[in-house]
Structures are given as structure tokens and as C-alpha cells.
């Protein structure tokens, strides 16, 4: 069991999201940075879609009541166990009674904490993701609070092997980390002004030539009015060629829509199912993790990518992740010999 002793800024249970119900107005929810979430799960022998805790900027404090295999991936929120720093992107065995705390946010914005066996929580509409506004999913439909107690599921056989190997290295310490970690192509979080690839949106042609140019040449800042639902950006104003009424239709993760005042909004994990603002762009799926790790005040530069290339990048990324999955199991088996 994990007992929360301090909730942090926004800590919620998330998996890949709730799909198949958007036609009923039920938002998808789910993790913001799916790559970090997937890798965190792989490192503790879980299915990629098992729920993790998504931690935001200021992480929570928690106590483990039993020996637990964990992994923390994504942004560096300075995790430590009983005062000693813990490394990201690797399997970590934490002893019963240990306290996991988080300090300042060094890189990125969100970290994912996976535990072997996942969280023993009911699925609502096929997902454990927390849908805060409707109060469903996750832990009682809410972000985690002080004194919440999370029951854990049964670890996989692979997780048991990792645990056994790491237990041998504990040597009286509160935790033991795997020496080996993930290739940097997956772990390097955002440069100071990252480039994010964007396809032309469905209403791209409605915008003035100047606005179209500026989207791909100037930089935009993430404002403080940004959350899991969407990021409001500040930068050059984007204007329509002429006032045009749009009828509401489906939107996507990474849709860049522009309300009439001209400041774009990037729709993210907790986006509404449909929207009525013109869509100037659509972020390529492979670059969504970069966007999700930006925090208020960070800047971003959009570069144009074609729909065809974006889809090819998508397929390539999935292939890489599949290889990574096999690599992890191979590497860990070698380490444990």
C-alpha cells in the first residue's frame, strides 16, 4: 500500500485514457506524456496501459507500507527516498516504511510514478483515468489528497524477477536502483525553446497569410492559464481573413485552435470532445510529449510537417518503443544473471 502524506500540486491516477465514449461527451482524459508513462510501466514489468500517478510541478510525499518496485519517468521533480536522491528512468526497489518525497522541478513539468502490479482501482468506462470535473475514475474521481491509501495490484513474474535482483543489492539501504537506464532519445526532456512539429489544421486556410507565416516562424509562450485541458499561448496574434462562423466538430489531442481574440489554445489530455473554434494546426502525435512537459513561462517554436510525414513518424516511433520494450526485458535479464 502507498499512503499519501502530502498531495503535491496535482497528483492524479491516469492511464492511456477513456476511449469510445467521446460521442457521449465523455472526455478522453489520460496521461499528458504517454512516452514517459509507457516507459515507467515497462520498467516495473507492467502492461504499458496500467495506470500511473501523474505528478505536476510539485510532487507529493508518500510512504510505502511494503517493499515496492517503482519507476519514475518524465520531468525531473527531484525525487528522494529518506533524503537520498533517486534516479529517473530506471527500476527502483523501495523498502517498506520508506518515504518518497519530491523537491523542486528541475526539468519538464510532469513525472510518472509506476508501481509494479499497478493500482488496484476499479475501471470506469474501461479506464482508471481520473476525470476530475465529472468526479469519476482514478481514486474516488479526485486528485490525490493527504491520507489517501492506494492499494497495489499483483506484480508480474517479470517484476518479481527484477525485485529479487535488486533486493540482493539493497545491503541495508532504503532503496536500490538498477544501474542500467533508457536510451537518451526517449529521456531527453525539452530544450530551452523546443521545436514542435505541427500539421496545417482544418481551417488553416481561413487565417491571414501573415498569421499562417507567424505560426511557423515566431515563438509562443505557455501562459499561466494552462492545465491538463489545454495550454493558452501568448505570441503574435493569429487573425482570420474574414469573420467566419464554425460549427462544432470533434477535436484531437494537440489541436491548436484560435478563439477570436487571436491567442491560440493547444488542446491536451482533458480537452472537450468537440470544439467550435477554427483549428490552425495540429501537433504531430510524436511531439505531444514535448508539449506536455512545458510549463507556464516556457517557450515553444512550431515547425511545419506534412500529414504524411507526421504519420510516418508515428509509425517509426511505435517501432522504436516496441524495440525498447524488448530491449528492456533483455537488458534486465542480463543484469540479473
Amino acid at each position, binding site marked *: 500500500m502507498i499512503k499519501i502524506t502530502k498531495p503535491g500540486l496535482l497528483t492524479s491516477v491516469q492511464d492511456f485514457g477513456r476511449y469510445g465514449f467521446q*460521442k457521449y*461527451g465523455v472526455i478522453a482524459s489520460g496521461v499528458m506524456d504517454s512516452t514517459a508513462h509507457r516507459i515507467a510501466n515497462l520498467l516495473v514489468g507492467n502492461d504499458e496501459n496500467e495506470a500511473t500517478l501523474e505528478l505536476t510541478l510539485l510532487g507529493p510525499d508518500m510512504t510505502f507500507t511494503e517493499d515496492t518496485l517503482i519507476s519514475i519517468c518524465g520531468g525531473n521533480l527531484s525525487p528522494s527516498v529518506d533524503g537520498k536522491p533517486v534516479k529517473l528512468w530506471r527500476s527502483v526497489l523501495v523498502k517498506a516504511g520508506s518515504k518518497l518525497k519530491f523537491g523542486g522541478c528541475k526539468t519538464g513539468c510532469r513525472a510518472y510514478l509506476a508501481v509494479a502490479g499497478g493500482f488496484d482501482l476499479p475501471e470506469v468506462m474501461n479506464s482508471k483515468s481520473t476525470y476530475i470535473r465529472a468526479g469519476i475514475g482514478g481514486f474516488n474521481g479526485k486528485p490525490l489528497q493527504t491520507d489517501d491509501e492506494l492499494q497495489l495490484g499483483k506484480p508480474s513474474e517479470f517484476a518479481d524477477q527484477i525485485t529479487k535482483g535488486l533486493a540482493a543489492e539493497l545491503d541495508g539501504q532504503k532503496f536500490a536502483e538498477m544501474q542500467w537506464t533508457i536510451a537518451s532519445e526517449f529521456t531527453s526532456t525539452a530544450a530551452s525553446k523546443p521545436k514542435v512539429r505541427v500539421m496545417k489544421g482544418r481551417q488553416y486556410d481561413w487565417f491571414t497569410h501573415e498569421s499562417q507565416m507567424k505560426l511557423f516562424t515566431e515563438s509562443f509562450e505557455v501562459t499561466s492559464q494552462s492545465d491538463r485541458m489545454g495550454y493558452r499561448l501568448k505570441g503574435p496574434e493569429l487573425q482570420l481573413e474574414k469573420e467566419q462562423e464554425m460549427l462544432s*466538430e470533434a477535436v*484531437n489531442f494537440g489541436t491548436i485552435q484560435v478563439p477570436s481574440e487571436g491567442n491560440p489554445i493547444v488542446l491536451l489530455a482533458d480537452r472537450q470532445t468537440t470544439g467550435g473554434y477554427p483549428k490552425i494546426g495540429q501537433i504531430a502525435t510524436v511531439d505531444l510529449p514535448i508539449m506536455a512537459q512545458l510549463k507556464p513561462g516556457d517557450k515553444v517554436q512550431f515547425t511545419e510537417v506534412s500529414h504524411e510525414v507526421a*504519420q510516418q513518424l508515428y509509425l517509426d516511433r511505435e517501432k522504436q518503443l516496441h524495440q525498447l520494450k524488448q530491449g528492456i526485458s533483455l537488458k534486465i535479464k542480463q543484469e540479473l544473471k
Partner: protein
Amino acid sequence: MEFNLQPLGDNSVIIELGEDISRDIQQKVKKVSSFLEQQSFDWMVEYVPGFTTVAVFYDPCKIEAKTLPYDEVCEELSAHLEKLAVEEGAEPRIVEIPVCYGGEFGPDLEEVAERNDLTPEEVIDIHSNGEYIVYMIGFAPGFPYIGGMDERIAAPRRKNPRLKIPAGSVGIAGKQTGVYPIETPGGWQLIGKTPRKLFLPEGETPSLLQAGDQIKFVPISVEEFQSWEEKEND
């Protein structure tokens, strides 16, 4: 059936079925939706209807394509969509929504009446005798975009939106009427409240209403409201 296909990102395609809000286009949207409901393509994640469109989300990794997954999805969809036709005289499903108008449930009923030089009773009469169609569900879980409200009871949104509008509230915003499925902030003028639950997270389908439904608002008393509510909570 005539249609256009366009990408909505690298994992989805949007089927365009017309340009404006009308019953005809709504029926095409409904036809395509029920086709997608029955024809479960391996690669389909889900579909989302809009006023004049249906978006299809897919998993690009589940498509065996020599070229791009998008091209394969378009080809498969087109082959089916070309053959689809809206049947003549298809009757919509009628859903009755009981509403207790005015009082604490509808604090803005009198304002809506005054604005339109009507009595509150006349507003109730007009509102509950309209023929309404659900064009789509969106904005919030189970929230219906409803067409067909009589313009004689139109009223602008409140200047100061309420921070909390209780679930079940029936309101008017401009020429639209709607029902709030969950508690939410909002600027609609509230004229009543229904005891029926529009969002059913435990149900087989989480939304009472679906695109294409016809709605009938039925005025009820406070006592009827209470007994309905008890029944709903059972």
C-alpha cells in the same frame, strides 16, 4: 451518400457531410454513426459526431498498408460510405424530459419572460411545446446541443455567469436551449430543472440522449419532481 474525407491529425479522419445545420444533414450524420457502430473496423478507436461531420479516430499501427495508413482508412471508409443512403421516413427516438419550471429551479424564468414581453406561463407553454432535435453531444458528458427552440423565448447569456449550475438545470442561451448533465459553471438563463439524469457513468451508455433523438419537455410540479428524483436515485 456524398461526403469528403480530410485528416484531423495523424490518427484520425473527418467525414464531412454538409455545410450547415439542418435535419437532412443531421440524418446523414446519424446514418454514418450507426453504420460505424455496427461495422467495427479493427483499426477504429472510436467515432465522434459533430453538427455536419463524423470524426473517426484510428490506430495507425493496426493497419496493414503498403502506403500510408490514412490512405487505407480512406479507401475502406469510402467503399462503404458510397453505398450508404438515408432511409425515407425514418422516425427519430422520442425522449421525454420532465421539467419543473420556475421557482428555485428556474431563477431566471421571470427575466426571460420580461425580456420577451411574455408571462412566465407563456414561456413554459412555448418551451414545452417545441419540437427539439439533438444535433450532437459535446461540451460536457451527456450535454445535448439542441436545435428547434422558438425564437420568441430567446434570451442572451447572463453578464455574470454563475459559478455553480446544478445538474439537471434547463436553460436558454441566445436561440438555444439545453440541459446541464453535471454541475458546472455557466452563463445560461435558468428556467427550470429536470429530475432525470442525463449523465449515467455506470450505465451501459453513459448518456441518456444521443445525436438524432427528438426531445419533448414535459412540465411537472414540485411534488412530481420529488417523486421522479426518488425513482431516479433508486
